[in-house]
């Protein structure tokens, strides 16, 4: 087949919603876009372990501690699936780490905010995982097979996490006055950054069209954001929490909630590395990596020794 016919074959698969698999031909741009998106997503899971990991040793009950540990472990697992999915596209995990540690690769900006109270564990589960799921559910049918399959597992676990987060918020909002305040304060801090998780407004989001075509994206940023606002506003009522946005108002005509202006200046600043915890997060991962070098070296050296010994035994 000529490149042209490869392209036709690829396009037809896309049109018929047939999965693209690692050995299939694919356009360079498709490969690059996927590597960028999947590795960003993997990095987000790994960096995402840190803000929640921050409360493991301080969880207020043993049950909550165990649930939180399991959740952060799941995130590591998600990272693992996603790195593996990206590797099928011809990049190694070490290359991706290197991009993360050098600041070349991005990850979800939400994890550059600090976790300041126990209620943040609820707010992250409820809002951040909630927003993530809305972003990610469509990816379960994305065109690239390994990514789609990874996302099925990820989404299943994340909706579980989201329920756990909501349950933490529910316990707090039905608890004492102090706990209700703790929950409200966390909601106030996480609300706007959660809205920003859907990315810039459609008008400023250049990649959308091509991505929609490739089923890497199925809805626009603004569509998903609106859905999130609608769902979350109803959930906040159940929790008895006040919306952090005074402009939230049901719009009968649109059949949606109107909401206030997002501070995109803040968003871009956090993306550019100026969030409260950007440096802290990358430092933590880089330290883990650098301090672990001798461990990885030892594991490799030992494996080589074992292999050599087995070889000798066989040869003997």
């Amino acid at each position, binding site marked *: 087949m000529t490149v042209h016919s490869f392209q036709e074959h690829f396009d037809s698969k896309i049109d018929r919603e047939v999965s693209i698999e690692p050995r299939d031909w694919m356009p360079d741009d498709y490969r690059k876009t996927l590597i960028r998106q999947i590795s960003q997503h993997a990095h987000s899971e790994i960096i995402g372990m840190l803000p929640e990991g921050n409360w493991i040793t*301080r969880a*207020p009950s043993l049950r909550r501690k165990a649930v939180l540990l399991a959740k952060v*472990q799941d995130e590591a*697992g998600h990272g693992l699936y996603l790195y593996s999915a990206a590797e099928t596209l011809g990049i190694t995990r070490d290359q991706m780490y290197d991009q993360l540690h050098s600041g070349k690769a991005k990850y979800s900006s939400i994890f550059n905010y600090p976790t300041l109270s126990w209620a943040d564990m609820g707010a992250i589960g409820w809002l951040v995982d909630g927003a993530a799921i809305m972003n990610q559910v469509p990816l379960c049918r994305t065109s690239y097979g390994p990514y789609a399959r990874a996302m099925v597992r990820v989404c299943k676990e994340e909706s579980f996490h989201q329920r756990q987060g909501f349950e933490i918020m529910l316990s707090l909002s039905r*608890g*004492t006055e102090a706990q209700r305040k703790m929950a409200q304060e966390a909601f106030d801090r996480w609300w706007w950054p959660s809205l920003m998780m859907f990315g810039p407004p459609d008008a400023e989001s250049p990649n959308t069209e091509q991505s929609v075509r490739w089923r890497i994206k199925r809805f626009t940023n603004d569509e998903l954001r609106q859905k999130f606002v609608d769902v979350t506003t109803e959930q906040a009522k159940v929790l008895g929490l006040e919306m952090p946005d005074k402009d939230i108002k049901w719009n009968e005509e649109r059949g949606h909630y109107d909401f206030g202006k997002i501070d995109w200046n803040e968003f871009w600043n956090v993306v550019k590395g100026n969030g409260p915890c950007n440096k802290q997060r990358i430092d933590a991962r880089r330290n883990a990596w650098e301090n*672990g070098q001798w*461990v990885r*070296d*030892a594991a490799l050296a030992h494996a080589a020794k074992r292999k050599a010994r087995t070889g000798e035994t066989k040869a003997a």
Partner: protein
Amino acid sequence: MNLIYTLRLADDALILGHRISEWCGHGPILEQDIALTNTSLDHIGRARSLYQYAAAQFNALPAEAKAGTFASVMLNDFVSKGAAIDEDDLAYLRDGNEFYNLLLLEQPNNDWAYTVARSFYYDAFNVLFWTELERSADTTLAAIAGKSLKEATYHLRWSSEWVIRLGDGTEESHSRMQQAVNDLWMYTGELFMPNDAEVAAANAGGVDITKLEAKWTEKVAEIFAEATLAMPAATWMQKGGKKGIHSEHLGYILAEMQYLQRAYPGMEW
């Protein structure tokens, strides 16, 4: 007495689970980060079962006995109001001198070699210990022991493999691993030194931990041989944890772990 016996086992599980959980998100290899978190979960899970059992034992005591059991202020306040206690009250409201975990388990993570060595010494003990305790006449403890034995067997495989990998890895890893097993050696004696509750248990036909030392030493020697590590030299053994006299590390662990429960007393989470 059984109460303190149960609590001691719970404290071991909680404190080691806590230390290991500090690695979460900071491990040298993603797969190992996951493995270690899993181990932490096992320990925390065991701590919960044991604290639940300890709480049940405590709640069944007559009021006079209850009042004299603990000295910790917030726990006693709670008890004096006549409320039943639960796993969290035991984990979060006792002060350091009423924790009975081994000194070994509260030692800092330091690096991967120390973390591995600490777990290895304890896992090797645990496999022997739970094997014995599984035969306990106390059916609750026997059931916990059965589950714990399965976990400990897996933990020991993991920690043994890492002792071997680091011992017989690079020059650097060998020297770090040797340093770690040497430095922590002085905390291993306490594994086999019974406190009053353990003496009473042994006298009543329970596990006699003093009898586990020979097999433990054999296992350690076997793994160290494979790891090309020297057995640490005989040394003076540290003790105290089992009687509530700890190292300076425990206070910091508890300050962090118990902060929320202390700052927001009596709330449900």
